[in-house]
Each structure stands twice: as C-alpha cells, then as structure tokens.
C-alpha cells in the first residue's frame, strides 16, 4: 500500500438509451496499491463496467466521466484508443471469465503468449518463445513444451485460464484486472487458479483488482473489498472483517447465503432500501 498504482475518483459511466440515460457506474472512487482489492456486487451493480472503464473498453455509445483516472503517472481520461492499446498488456491487463472466448482458436497457445511478448517488448522470435515457456512454467504447467504447441480447444478450462494469466502477465503489467476469473471453473480448479494468481501477483508486486459476485471467494482471497450496488460503492472494508460489515446491503447479502451446518428454515431475504440508491444522486 506504499505507492498508488491506480487512482480512481468519481468515475461515472453512462449509457444513453431510449428511456433516458442509464448510469451504470456512479461516482466510484478508490485507490489501488500493491494489493489485492476485490469488488463484489450482484449483476447490474456496475462492477464489470468499472473494470472495463479502466481498461478503456467501454464502447460507443457509453460515456466515461471522472475527476481522476490515473494509472501511475498516466492520465487515462480522454486517452485515445491507440493510447489504450499501448497500455493494455504492457501496464494493465485483464483476465475474463471464460478463456474459450479470449483465446484465438486457430493459433497454438504458446504462439499467442509469445506474440504478446513480441508485440509489447519488441523481442525476437527466440526470446519470445523462451519467455513464453518460462511464463507457462510460472503458472505451474508441468510440461510447457507440450502445452506450447496445443490449441485452445485441446486444453481444459482450468488450464485455459492459466494460459490466459500467462499471456496477460508476460509483458509485466503493473495491474491485473480479473473479472470473474474462476466463475466458469469447478471449485477444485478454482482454488488452483487463484493460488497461481496470488503467487504471481505477490512475487511481482502487482496490484490486483478481483471482480466477483462471490462474497466467500473475495473475502478469503483479497486484502480489501469494495461492495458495489446500483453503480456505486456502498462500503469498503477489510476483507477478513466482511462479517462485521456495517452496511445493511452487505449484511443482507451475507445473511442470504445458505451456509453448511446451519440449517435455517427460511433464509433472510434482502430488503432493498431505495435510500441506498439515493445516497449519491
């Protein structure tokens, strides 16, 4: 937490629609250091849009407004598509839910990783290949030479996600945004992928923004958690102390989760308070 990698102040994302503007993200502010920051929220809470706004991936006709949106010393506000393309991968990277859709199906996974290396670091073919193999090893793939030549359809979901992580981290970005990186995976594989993510982010001193709907996962994995609802941050708390959260929404969500070993005839249902939306008009 010594230095700020990413500073976001009053970020808003607005989509125009037939029935007036829809503000998907409303005045979100946070600072990301060399830490693991989680964003939890239900669908439509704006958590993914926040991640995409930072990556410059909010397409037309969405509008981004912010008082501050800074990656290190680069101002991201009004950065052109070309400017973003130079940043993506090299300084800021993103892992999405399903590797199936993020990997090129007609190129071997090793080539794709090497290609990323060459594009960002202008390395030679041989250097890129060596770096890609090292990276595959770093994500605990046992036989990198063999996996290097495999195509996306030949690998399992868990391995695909590890390949994605390798590809995203090969150019050494400062920040990794992981949007539901393990939601498409089985629980046992989820744990492995998270462990690898954890290890790499720590050893490289990166900042990680983990976006997820899973309260358990975020609270057990991250250092700090932002709770989002209807486009705004309701609460920020230490991940370990999520159980002591103050906001009624967070408490309601936690209570609504069925828990093993605690049989309740009825789960307490979340009562949504319109005042939560009115906080910041």
């Amino acid at each position, binding site marked *: 937490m010594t230095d700020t990698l990413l500073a976001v102040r009053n970020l808003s994302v607005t989509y125009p629609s037939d029935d007036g*503007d829809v503000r998907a993200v409303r005045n979100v502010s946070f600072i990301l250091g060399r830490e693991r920051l989680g964003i939890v929220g239900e669908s439509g809470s704006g958590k993914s849009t926040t991640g995409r706004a930072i990556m410059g991936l909010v397409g037309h006709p969405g509008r981004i407004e912010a008082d501050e949106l800074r990656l290190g010393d680069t101002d991201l506000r009004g950065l052109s598509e070309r400017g973003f393309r130079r940043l993506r991968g090299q300084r800021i990277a993103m892992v999405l839910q399903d590797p199936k859709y993020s990997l090129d199906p007609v190129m071997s996974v090793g080539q794709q990783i090497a290609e990323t290396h060459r594009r960002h670091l202008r390395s030679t073919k041989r250097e890129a290949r060596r770096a890609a193999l090292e990276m595959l090893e770093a994500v605990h793939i046992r036989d990198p030479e063999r996996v290097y030549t495999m195509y996306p359809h030949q690998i399992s979901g868990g391995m695909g996600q590890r390949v994605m992580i390798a590809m995203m981290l090969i150019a050494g970005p400062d920040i990794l945004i992981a949007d539901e990186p393990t939601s498409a995976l089985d629980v046992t594989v989820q744990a492995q992928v998270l462990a690898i993510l954890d290890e790499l982010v720590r050893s490289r001193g990166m900042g990680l923004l983990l976006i997820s709907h899973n309260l358990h996962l975020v609270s057990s994995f991250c250092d700090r958690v932002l709770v989002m609802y209807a486009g705004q941050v309701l609460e920020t708390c230490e991940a370990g102390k999520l159980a002591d959260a103050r906001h009624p929404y967070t408490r309601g969500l936690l209570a609504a989760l069925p828990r093993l070993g605690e049989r309740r005839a009825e789960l307490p249902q979340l009562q949504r308070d319109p005042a939560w939306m009115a906080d910041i008009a």
Partner: protein
Amino acid sequence: MANATASAPAPGSARAWLLSPSPASRTQARCGRWFRAWLGFRRNTLAMTGLGIVLLLVLMAIFAPLIADRQSTTLQVLANRLQPASWQHPFGTDELGRDLFARVVFGSRITLTIVAMVGVIVVPVGLAIGLPAGYFGGWVDRVLMRITDIFLAFPRLVLALAFAAALGPGIENAVIAIALTAWPPYARLARAETLTRRRAEFIQAAELQGASALRIIATQIVPLCLSSVIIRLTLDMAGIILTAAGLGFLGLGAQPPAPEWGAMVSSGRQVLLDQWWVATIPGLAIFIVSLGFNLLGDGLRDAGDSRS
C-alpha cells in the same frame, strides 16, 4: 442496471398502452411486442426506404385502375408507335403504340401476384420438409435432405425453364416452375433453425410435460423459424422477380398482351438503341422493386439480430 430516468409517455395514450411493461391481455402483449420491433426498425433509414418502395408497389397494384387507364395497356395505336415521353404518355409508347406508363402500373399486379403465390407455396413446403428433418433427425432427416439436395443440384433458372417449357407458358406455370426451384433453401434453413433449437431447454421442458412432436414443432419451433424464413423470403423476392422477368423475357411467363415487365423488356430490346425507353422503363421498375425488397429484407434481418 442503474435506475433509468425514464421519459414516460403520457398515461392513457396509445403509445403508453403499447409500451406498457405489464400488459393486461394477450393482444396487448403482442401489439406491444410488434410496436417495440417497429420502433427499432424505424431507425434504419435504408430499411425504411425499402419498406416505402414495397408499400408503394402494393398500393400501385391495388389502385392501378385509378392511376392509369386499363384500356390503354392493350390499346394499340400504331400511328403512335415508339413515341418518347410526353404529357399524354409519361413513359412514352412501345412498338405497338401502347402506353408504357399504364403497362408498367398494371404490370405491378402481375409481379406482385407471382411473388405472393411463390411465397405462399414455398414457405409451407420448405417448413414441411425442413422441420421434421431437423426435429426427428436420423433416417427422416437423411431421406428428406437427399430429396432437397436433388432439387438443389439443378441450376435454378434452367430448372424453372425446363418446367415452364414442359408445363406450357403462362403465369400459373411460371409460378409453379419458380416455386419448385425455390423451396429447397427454405427446407435447409428450417432444418438448420430446428437443429439449433432442438436441444434448447424450453423444448425439453415441453417434452417433459408430455407434448407430442407435432405440438412441439407447431407451437414451439415454428414461431422461431418463421422470422428467419420470412426474412429469407423477403431477400429472395428480388430473385423471384428476376426469375419471373427472365421467364417472361424468354416468352415462357406471362403471354402477350399481358403487361409483364420481363416480357416488356424483351419486346423492347430490338429498339433498344433508338428508342431506349421501351426496354429501360420496365427494366427500371424491376430494378427498383428488387432493390426495395432487398433493403427491406436486410432491415428485417438487422432488427432480428439486435433483438437476439
């Protein structure tokens, strides 16, 4: 999503009734759905142009007797042969001194009849072959699709020509000839649409509830196939019109003196260099109507895409 600052229409208006989020009857729900689709479609200028052209064609066909004089379509005034455009004859006259304007206007009736009759034959036949093939699979699929392949293996115009020649010239036979060659793509389309929906959970739910195959096809699959079949038909209209015109041009479609556009182009070709309008005006009519149907079809397809 976050709250939307809705600009709600005034209560009580037709628009409010149509856009009501909680319709009170089946009719209101259906009308609302069509209205929403229309709102999306309306934004597409090209598609609206296409719709305009097609509507104009339909209106022209319906009100042909009011726009032009029926007699003058066949009235031969040999003294007035091959006159250029004038107040009396806005499009000029042809080689037998007939008014081209009246002939083009009444020709729209023939074109529209052919198009409508082909559509009425082709869609049910295509669905009847394609839906069971996709739904049942196995040998049903193999038999039906091989039959389709046989029809697909012939060049379309040549097959239509052969049929028209064998059945004898005339509009009805032209329609049959075109329909016989036009249905296979519809069967394929219906089969492909059925295959993608076959494993859908709502089909499985219907099966679980004990619905028969016929009921599932009729109530669950047909409504889904129909939209893409209609889009396909709209896009095919241009081809059908051109085939009809081609048959007319070769003397196998409508017979003289019927003012069929293709036949008109054919008769004008001997004087194409000196009296260009005789062949060009009906040719333009064919071109504009084909374009209209194509634009409309493209627009419908885009509207369908955005909804899914």
